[in-house]
């Protein structure tokens, strides 16, 4: 992979959103990925609806949590995603009001990505932002900088938060992943979290996936 990459600088990433008091990170992670895939294939950056997934993905549990793999499947089954403007985020479960005629993007498939961080970086640079899930240890108090908790404290099998990898690089020789979070811009570095890259920190490499747009 190239030594550094940042999809924010290439216009593939929408502004940081805020999931509010709702465990809907899975929906934000997936819409962020689809926004990037759609941008790369169709050339338009659209902010997409998480609320549609909360309300209409019946396999997942809305604010109680969900899985990206199920969300991709729901998007395919429903027939696409509406935009944020058409189906706005409320942060709590509502009756599904998806309107297929308002769907602006579709996906054809979804794929699971390698657990090798070098391969993930290569995939990201060529294919776009990646949906991942991590152990959120320490994130409650994270302010800035590259987070690298000791492995026993941030076990890769205690994964509890879905986010979006949008880039990678090095800061003073420390390799990092640039991670778009969904806790608003008043958290972290303008809403972004920076995590050490190369040691599988906090399980960042365990659940990487992406939608496929043909």
């Amino acid at each position: 992979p190239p030594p550094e990459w940042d999809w924010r600088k290439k216009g593939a990433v929408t502004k940081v959103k805020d999931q509010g008091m709702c465990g809907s990170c899975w929906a934000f992670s997936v819409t962020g990925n689809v926004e990037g895939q759609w941008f790369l294939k169709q050339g338009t950056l659209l902010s997409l609806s998480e609320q549609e997934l909360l309300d209409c993905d019946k396999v997942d549990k809305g604010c109680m949590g969900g899985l990206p793999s199920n969300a991709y499947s729901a998007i395919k089954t429903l027939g696409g995603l509406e935009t944020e403007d058409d189906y706005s985020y409320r942060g709590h479960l509502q009756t599904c009001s998806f309107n297929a005629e308002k769907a602006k993007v579709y996906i054809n498939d979804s794929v699971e990505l390698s657990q090798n961080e070098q391969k993930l970086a290569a995939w990201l640079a060529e294919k776009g932002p990646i949906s991942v899930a991590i152990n959120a240890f320490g994130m409650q108090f994270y302010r800035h900088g590259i987070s690298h908790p000791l492995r026993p404290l941030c076990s890769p099998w205690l994964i509890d938060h879905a986010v979006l990898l949008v880039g990678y690089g090095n800061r003073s020789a420390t390799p990092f992943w640039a991670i778009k979070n969904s806790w608003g811009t008043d958290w972290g570095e303008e809403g972004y979290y920076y995590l050490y890259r190369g040691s599988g920190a906090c399980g960042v490499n365990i659940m990487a996936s992406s939608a496929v747009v043909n």
Partner: protein
Amino acid sequence: APKKPRAAGPQARELASPELLAPARFALEMYNRGRAAGTRAALRAVRGRVRRAGRGSLYSLKATLVEPPCNDPTVCQLPISKKTLLCSFEVLDELGKHMLLRRDCGPVDTKVTGAGTAQDAGRAQVTPHVGFSPNSSLLEPSPDDTNETFSSFLPLLNKDPLPQDFSVKMASIFKEFVTTYNRTYDTKEEARWRMSVFANNMVRAQKIQALDTGTARYGVTKFSDLTEEEFRTIYLNPLLQEEPGRKMRLAKSVSSL
């Protein structure tokens, strides 16, 4: 926040007492490390939950510990009237190796009623003392129990006395937090409780800071007045610990395209 339904599998579930004894004993052992015989705390009651995933189990325990009477006032850590402690422990059991991830103990002011013994895993009806909990810590595992040890610096963190003006400083930081994040609390009691949570969290953040090997800075955030349990319940996603839902095909790596 609504309580999440507890199911079998990796989600948390209440445990019967025999399953709790091994992690509880380990937590007690860690708590008593370095203490001479006769000065060790004893386990009076324990209850808890477990979350299982992959090769490990994470036990969240609430334990009542009893400190032996302290006869030398120059070395007593607690006033005589506060010999009972209510502790929260998180014990990780990975492939049979235990590790203490979190310890949070505070003295109990009132008498314990209805508490059973460790054998019957009775549930203690206790009123925890509201205030700062300087013992709140991420504890080092025994070098025997893990390949990575934090023992070189954590004991210092755990034993460093808090500065005398800790409460005053903390109140000032909390006031700033309330203003910055526009917090309102319904009652004075809630405000006091939130401030104690905030103070505990500042100690936790400091310890997370000490254990971070990167360049990250931890401190006050908009989540600083939430307990760990509240934060997990409201903002995190326990379903991710379960088996992945739908199986997806593996992507070709870009080098082989």
